[in-house]
């Protein structure tokens, strides 16, 4: 649509196409989504709060929904975990949605179709790493939350597939004397907190997990990525099919560098967890400097010694 925009990194039509294509066989490849859905739900369990109306953004075939409200009750009446009464599941791919249950909407994270203050909770399971304008998407999400509503999302982070990135790069360098972008750029932990703040979330928290998955070979890994609908959708990707010789050489390097003792190869998936709250007056805030009601020295029963510099008033 707007390929001239320099901020546009991903081809959203390709993201959708990859998901549409992967949808029918997704059940055979969704282990990572199921694993992270469990971890997201565990994090949610730590929050002492009920969330009657929830949104799952980038729901794929409903992995997170099944964890939160059960296989049968997805989106229907009947309380799920964390007091969820209504779960709206949204994905860019209508074909993926066909595999989910309950209340479904096809929608784009970059252009959310939800009214302000609609949800008590917004969750996202491994989808936001394909969004071009992440600050914009988070801003729209925050607005779709009621005041004091919570967002928690998992997305792939910078260390993801570093092994494959290196092997493809080195193989391509040897074969053609140049490299092209074959693995997505991902957000880093250090950027994520700032992104949440820019989008207006209070009390932002970011942490990360590293999952190591082993495969028979790099070929099996690449086939799995296709099955997950996670193949390269960068706008600057090469449009020609990858030469067979490059793949064979990359797989050889992969086996040399990253084999486990049992002969399988390891692949890293780094998952970033972003959490924040839509602002509300009840939330704790730091006091303004200089508004202290009691002296620290008194609390410590000690004598105040000047450090030489005074805080501004």
């Amino acid at each position, binding site marked *: 649509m707007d390929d001239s925009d320099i901020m546009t990194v991903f081809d959203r039509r390709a993201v959708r196409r990859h998901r549409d294509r992967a949808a029918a066989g997704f059940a055979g490849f969704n282990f990572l989504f199921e694993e992270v859905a469990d971890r997201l739900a565990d994090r949610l369990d730590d929050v002492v709060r009920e969330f009657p109306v929830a949104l799952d953004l980038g729901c794929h075939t409903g992995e997170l929904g099944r964890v939160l409200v059960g296989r049968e009750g997805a989106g229907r009446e009947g309380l799920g975990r964390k007091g969820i009464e209504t779960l709206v599941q949204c994905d860019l791919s209508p074909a993926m949605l066909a595999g989910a249950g309950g*209340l479904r909407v096809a929608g784009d994270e970059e*252009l959310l179709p*939800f009214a302000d203050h609609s949800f008590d909770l917004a969750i996202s399971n491994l989808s936001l790493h394909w969004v071009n304008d992440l600050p914009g998407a988070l801003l729209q999400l925050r607005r779709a939350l009621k005041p004091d509503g919570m967002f928690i999302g998992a997305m792939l982070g910078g260390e993801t597939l570093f092994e494959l990135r290196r092997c493809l790069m080195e193989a391509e360098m040897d074969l053609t004397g140049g490299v092209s972008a074959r693995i997505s750029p991902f957000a880093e932990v250090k950027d994520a907190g700032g992104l949440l703040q820019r989008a207006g979330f209070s009390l932002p928290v970011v942490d990360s997990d590293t999952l190591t998955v082993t495969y028979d070979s790099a070929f099996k890994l690449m086939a799995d990525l296709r099955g997950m609908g996670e193949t390269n959708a960068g706008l600057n990707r090469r449009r020609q099919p990858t030469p067979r010789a490059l793949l064979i050489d990359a797989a050889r390097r992969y086996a040399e560098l990253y084999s486990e003792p049992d002969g399988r190869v390891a692949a890293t998936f780094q998952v970033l967890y972003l959490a924040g709250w839509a602002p509300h007056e009840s939330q704790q805030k730091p006091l303004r400097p200089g508004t202290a009601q009691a002296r620290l020295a008194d609390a410590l029963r000690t004598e105040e010694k000047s450090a030489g510099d005074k805080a501004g008033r």
Partner: protein
Amino acid sequence: MSDTKTGSTAKVDPKLLEILVCPLTKGPLSYDAAAQELISERAGLAYPIRDGIPIMLVDEARTLDSDNAHPAKLAGH
């Protein structure tokens, strides 16, 4: 209900209609039950509903302009 052309029997859940807005304008939508469309007058687009699932993707929306079934744009707002 009037003549529903689509064979789909699934209806869109009223709970969804309450929270959906036009993704482009964030403005209100009107529900055309017969055509199974959600209409954004401000954007001049009709978003299809398939098997009860609103497809809120601009790529898939029908442009209202020429097929004058909804002269909303002429009305101004």
